[in-house]
């Protein structure tokens, strides 16, 4: 059980970054972006190209892929979501669905369906207090924690972070306080892209690289963001851990294939009874 809990924590930690991206994008853009799974996939494959094919060590490959993804996301927004900005949540959700298809299948087109792995040295797993851990998991925890702290600092200490929170809180008031929304939106996409890329690389390290790798996490990531409260970064962190741990623990009592039932039920229960999640604010759609 301790092992399962630990595995759950690792899963939760991996999900923190994409959950943060989801909550950031929802706050600034006001719609749930279903393409985040595929975005993680594409970024992971970009890192793969640099790492396994061009021979870069994983860290610089991941860093380069993160920046590239950030920029790519700004471009994607400009082409896909900007023309639809005025049209409302459903239209944007459907567009993000289509975008997810496109991105995932670009990966499939380029790399086929078989699983790939990053070129990293295999290190022996070690035991700590009766729990088996490996180096990748330690790296995952370290990277995610660092990213969390960086995000927190960004959102609370920097003007752009404040601006993003302001836009999430009240978009029209933000306008009359001099905040230009296109700039804020660009930054939100860049940061989301970086977070999603990091998440994708961590998933690739934890499991393997294959086209559905990101979409497999989509439901869980959304459950994490919704549980924590859409728009609340702290919520994304807490939500991801809770969903991760509970999902893993559920395999002890239910068939493993239904692991996804946990986030699905969480989504339904929260949206029915407490849509703002744990830490979110009820959003007033004006």
């Amino acid at each position: 059980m301790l092992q399962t809990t630990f595995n759950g924590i690792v899963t939760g930690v991996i999900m923190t970054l994409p959950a943060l991206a989801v909550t950031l994008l929802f706050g600034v853009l006001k719609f749930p972006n279903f393409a985040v799974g595929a975005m993680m996939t594409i970024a992971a494959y970009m890192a793969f190209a640099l790492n396994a094919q061009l021979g870069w060590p994983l860290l610089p490959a991941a860093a380069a892929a993160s920046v590239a993804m950030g920029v790519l996301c700004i471009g994607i927004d400009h082409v896909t979501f900007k023309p639809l900005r005025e049209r409302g949540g459903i239209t944007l959700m459907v567009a993000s669905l289509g975008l997810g298809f496109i991105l995932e299948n670009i990966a499939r087109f380029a790399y086929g369906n078989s699983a790939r792995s990053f070129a990293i040295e295999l290190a022996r797993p070690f035991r700590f207090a009766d729990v088996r851990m490996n180096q990748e998991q330690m790296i995952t925890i370290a990277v995610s924690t660092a990213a969390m702290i960086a995000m927190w600092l960004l959102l609370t200490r920097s003007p752009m972070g404040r601006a993003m929170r302001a836009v999430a809180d009240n978009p029209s008031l933000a306008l009359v306080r001099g905040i230009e929304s296109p700039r804020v939106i660009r930054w939100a996409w860049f940061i989301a892209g970086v977070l999603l890329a990091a998440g994708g690389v961590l998933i690739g390290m934890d499991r393997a690289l294959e086209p559905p790798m990101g979409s497999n996490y989509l439901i869980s990531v959304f459950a994490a963001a919704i549980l924590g409260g859409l728009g609340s970064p702290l919520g994304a962190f807490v939500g991801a851990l809770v969903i991760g741990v509970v999902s893993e623990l559920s395999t002890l009592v239910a068939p493993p294939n239904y692991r996804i039932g946990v986030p699905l039920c969480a989504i339904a229960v929260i949206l029915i009874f407490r849509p703002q999640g744990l830490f979110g604010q009820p959003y007033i759609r004006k």
Partner: protein
Amino acid sequence: MSNPLRPPAAILSATGLHAGYGAGDIIKGVDAELGTGRIVTIIGPNGSGKSTLIKTLAGLLPARQGEIELEGRRLNDLSAPKRVRAGIAYVPQEYNVFRNLTVLENLKIAREFMGAGRSRERVLDDEVAGLFPELAAHHRTQAGNLSGGQRQMLAFACALTVRPKVLMLDEPSAGLSPKHMSDVFDKVQRVNAIGVSILLVEQNAREALRISHTCIVLAGGRVRAVAPANEVLGMKDLNSLYLGDATLH
């Protein structure tokens, strides 16, 4: 009766303004002027278009027809953030603070994106603090946890953190107790005294008119009358004004 002295130049003017939300226009051909250094109050019944007018001036609503000018410069094509930086500050009637941010963060944001450091004077922290002493103790409180009166004050303070040329307030006294109300109007006068021209939209007409120079009467989306505030104050029945029956100069 015409004023023998030349009237002060208008710092903000709207000419033939039309705007609305859906199919029809809510304001239909509005001409309005705010004299430099003046306090002008717009009064009118519910639904007369007062808020719509202010929102259009602020840039939250596009002007379908007509011109808006600030110190002679045409504003129609400027987005709301650009208008704010050009010197028009706006305090909406509701949802006028960022509830999820602290008081201090609200004040910071109000300054950070104003492109200050160009030709605009910055209001010193002291001046704003001096005008709004009640906010000092609450810097770390979330704006959503403030009382209604305190939120109004915060909204007001945010609009002033970089000294605007024009301050537009949409029903600043709405929902406030009489004590808070007179506090608000007192502050409006003090802000005016440091050189900010003020455009006020108000339901509590008499209170606002007492501190104003000029009154604009808006009804049914049109300007019914423009007159010195004390003249309007002297009238017993404001309703006839709304209907355009009374004659004023």
